[in-house]
Structure formats: C-alpha cells, structure tokens
C-alpha cells in the first residue's frame, strides 16, 4: 500500500489528478506542509491513502533532503478511502469542522465606538474529493485545539495564529506565498462603552465559502461586534463578483438562524 519510492515535483496545490497507480506516493506541496497520496488495487476498485507531513514536509535533513520520510503503513496519519472506480481525485480547500479560534500575534485595543477594517488569515484543510463527494478532510497545519471563552462555557476550537493586517486591501504577496491560507476580510466594531482588547477572533467555517481570485483564497467579509454581552460574528455583505466559489457553506442561512436560535434557547433554559 505505501510505496517505497515517493515521487517529488511541483504541481498546483488545488485541482484534479488521476489516481497515482504504479508510480509511488504522489506529493502535493502546500507551503512547508506536504500531502502525499498513494493508491493500491483493491478488488474491483482502488484504495486511496493520504497523509499530511508537517514542518519540513517530512524531509530528512542532509544530502537526501529530497527523500520524504513517510509514516509507516500502520500509522494513524494515513487516511484510507475505497473508491470503486478508477476516476480522478481532487484536492479542494475547506474549513475545519470545528470553529477556528484565530489568536492575533499582536493584540490591540479597540476604543469604545471604534470601527476597524482589515484582514486575518486562517489555515485551510485539504478536502479529498472522490466521485464528486468529499472522502476525507486533512488539516494542512498541525491541528492543535484551544478553548475560546472560559472553561465553564467556552467552545473547543481549532487553534490558529494570524496577523491582523489593517487596511482596505490585502497584502497579496503574503497570501500567494502560502496556498494553505484563506484570507478573511473583517470589520471590527466596539459597541460597548469600554475599551476592548482584541486578542482572539473566532471564525465559524461552516458558515463561510472559499473563494478563489487572483490574490489567492478568501472568504466573505465578516463583522465582529463587541458589546457588553460578548462578541458576535456575522457575515457582512454578499460574495464578491468575479470570484470562483471552491467551497460553499455547509449550513444554509436558515439553518444557521434556527441553529443559533436553538442554542440561545438552550442556553436560557438549560442551566
């Protein structure tokens, strides 16, 4: 199943490819993360195995730095999927199933009534699509978790770190250098009467699209409103024109409304 001689070579990060039969493990580079895909015959179909190697992309230091150090066949890093037909597989960007807590590398204070616009970035997951359906989703950054909020009532989130890039336009160069990043245009508003320290912003990926344009991957604009009762995130405006939609929200607007209303109701009645 796990090929002995990995194949290296640059190829676009996102797209479709035929199954890598009789050619070893195929390598997909995403910044310093490498996603390897291998296929093996299994009955009438094939078993596709995929694993993510973080850091230097699993490369061993020294002369043979081009050789990937693959995980052993029994390693849980390998995710295996059976596919009945020998079609293509696709790698598409997506969001983690957990909310993402973006920790700002340089927190700042937002004065009462202040409004700020800017950009933050989160790491995408690679969705392995077979026959038009998502087979498995692989995190392209080491999947650390964190707690957004207090230990009594917080939400367990995927941990991520970002810079807050203030201004109307995104610094495109920083995005192009790393295909794993999805940029989120944000609008922050402090509606409370006290200054707010902006250190973490929580993003619910299930509500967002992944859009591709000349600058890389991005999402819809998000609005964060800070008030005495906490911070609320919501979509701020429609999908920009001229962008290709690579992933749609997993829940519709109506579902989100019902879900959120139910959560509020539960919070009021349960404890």
């Amino acid at each position: 199943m796990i090929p002995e001689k990995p194949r290296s070579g640059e190829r676009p990060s996102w797209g479709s490819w035929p199954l890598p039969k009789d050619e070893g493990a195929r390598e997909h580079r995403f910044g310093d993360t490498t996603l390897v895909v291998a296929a093996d015959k299994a009955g009438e179909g094939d078993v596709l195995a995929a694993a993510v190697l973080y850091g230097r992309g699993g490369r061993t230091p020294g002369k043979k730095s081009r050789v990937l150090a693959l995980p052993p066949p029994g390693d849980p890093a390998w995710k295996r999927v059976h596919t009945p037909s020998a079609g293509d597989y696709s790698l598409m960007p997506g969001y983690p199933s957990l909310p993402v807590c973006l920790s700002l590398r340089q927190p700042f204070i937002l004065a009462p009534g202040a409004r700020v616009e800017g950009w933050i970035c989160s790491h995408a997951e690679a969705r392995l699509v077979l026959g038009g359906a998502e087979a498995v989703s692989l995190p392209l950054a080491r999947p650390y978790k964190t707690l957004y909020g207090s230990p009594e009532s917080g939400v367990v989130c995927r941990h991520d770190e970002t810079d807050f890039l203030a201004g109307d336009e995104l610094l495109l160069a920083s995005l192009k250098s790393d295909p794993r990043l999805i940029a989120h245009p944000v609008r922050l508003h402090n509606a409370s009467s006290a200054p707010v320290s902006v250190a973490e912003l929580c993003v619910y990926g299930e509500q967002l699209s992944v859009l591709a344009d000349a600058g890389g991957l991005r999402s819809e604009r998000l609005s964060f409103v800070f008030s005495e009762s906490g911070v609320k995130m919501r979509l701020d405006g429609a999908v920009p024109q001229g962008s290709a939609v690579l992933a749609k929200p997993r829940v519709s607007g109506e579902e989100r409304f019902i879900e959120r209303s139910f959560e509020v109701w539960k919070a009021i009645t349960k404890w």
Partner: protein
Amino acid sequence: MVGTEGTLGAAAGQEPALEAAAETAAEGADTILGFIPADGVLGRIFSMDTALKVGRVALIIVAGLVLVGLAVSILRRMTRRRMDARTSALLVKLAQYLGFALIAINAFEAAEVDLSALLGAAGIAGIALGFAAQTSVSNFISGFFLMSDKTFAQGDVLSVNGLTGVVTAVDALSVKLRTFDNQLVRIPNETLIKADVANVTRYPARRLDMKLTLTYGTDMDAARTALVGAVLGDVYALRKPEPLFLVRGLGDNGIDVLLGAWLAADDWVEGTNSLYSSVVAALSEAGLGLAYPTITVLQDDGAPQKTARQPSGARR
C-alpha cells in the same frame, strides 16, 4: 323476564298444542343461551344492561388510551427540543399517569361503581400502599429535585459512589448508567440526591493534573521549560487555558510538581495517554529524571550513608 311471565300466565287454559309451545317458550325465556338460568348469578351478569355497561367501559378505555397516547406523543415532541431529556421524560410520565387516572375514574363511573365506597377503601389501602411504596414515592419526588438541580442530562458522564458511566436513561424513579466496562447500573433518584455526584463532561474542557516527583538537584527552570513545552507540543492539549506548572513542595523523595494540562472533554482518554507519554519523553530528552522512593540510613559511627531501594537520583 317479568313481562314474559305475565304473557305465560295469560296463556294458561289454551289448547294443548299451544300450551306445549308456551311451555317450551317459557323454558327458553328462563335461560340465557339455552343453558344459563336467567335468575341465577350468571344470568344477572349476562343481562343486556351489563352488556351495555361493559361496552361503555370498553369504549371509554379504548378512546381514553388513544387520547392519552396522542397527548403524550404531542407532549414528547414539544418538550424534546425545548427541554433537556430528564425534564421531558418526567413531564411525559406525569401526563401519562394523569391520563390513566382520568380513564380509570371515567371507566368506574361508566360501570356505575360507587366511587365513594372505593375511595373509602382506597384511603385504607392508601395507608398500606404508602408504607409499601415509600421508597418509590421518595424516588419519584427526588426526581423532581434532581430535575430542578439540572446537574446532568442524558449523555453526560457521571461519577457516583465510585461508579463512572454514561447516562443512558433518566427515568421517573431512577437513572441508568452504562459503565465503561459495559455494565448497566440503575441508580435510584434518592441515592443521587444524597450522594456526591461528579458530572465529568459538564464543561467543554477538563484539566489533567499530573503529579510528578523530580529528583533533588533538578534544574527547575529546565524542568519547567521541558514540561510546559511537552504539553504545548502535544496535539491533544489545549493551547488555552495555558498549562499549569506548580511546585507543590519538597517531598520525602524529591521535588513534588503539579503539571496541569487542559484537554477537550471528548479527547480525555486519548489526551491522557498522549500527554503522559509526551512528558516522559520530554524529561528524558532534557536529561531530567523522576525520583524513586529513597531512604537514608545512619550508621553507628555517625557518618551518614545514603542507600536506596531504587538507585537514588536515578535518571531515566
């Protein structure tokens, strides 16, 4: 029956054929279905009047059960989403019992049973039943107190009197747990009111407290760096809240340290295994060791000689 006898009396003195026919008819009228005497106990039971009563009672019971079933079904649907499982189950049970009581009262009325006599008897029986059902009633009422407490719900992991398991059912009289070695444990509500109950999964995150003893002479800054680094490098440990490093004191065998790492409640088992392994690996990599139990023996000449059950200051 009276009417039939009158008719027979009027027929007396007619022709013999008619008399024979009348006698045959009289014999038939004095029995039900040809063999049950009409004036006997069974005859009185199998009268038309009784049949009507039975029909009414049956109709009330069937219609009542259908109505109660419908009401319970609607109530269950209404409460399932709006309330936690425990409250919903108790409300449904209460509605069910009330419905059954109403059906019973109506059925007795339809059967023309004197309820006052029955209630009088029920009063006496109630005292006897009260003593007999004391525990059940106590459990039932305890259920309401537990409901108002809102300490746990279905799906939570509870630890009660040394037992730990997942709450699979919250009933009117008891709570059922499925322990992790796959046993079904029924805990009466009254016990839960009295006992110390720990809801292990109430909050989204839990702290794993690792109590370690480091050898005397350990560089504590290096130990802190290694241990906190091990936690932050573990994929299961939460980045926030930050790990806790606390020197608990100087123990008999070494320096007692508490290392607290936060885990998502869902990752408890995998996270615990992973974190202990990470800590041991980090200490080994940093050249630090965990202390073994040691004992100091003083010789007669006064010179101390340190011996150990295990190598003193052993390093792993």
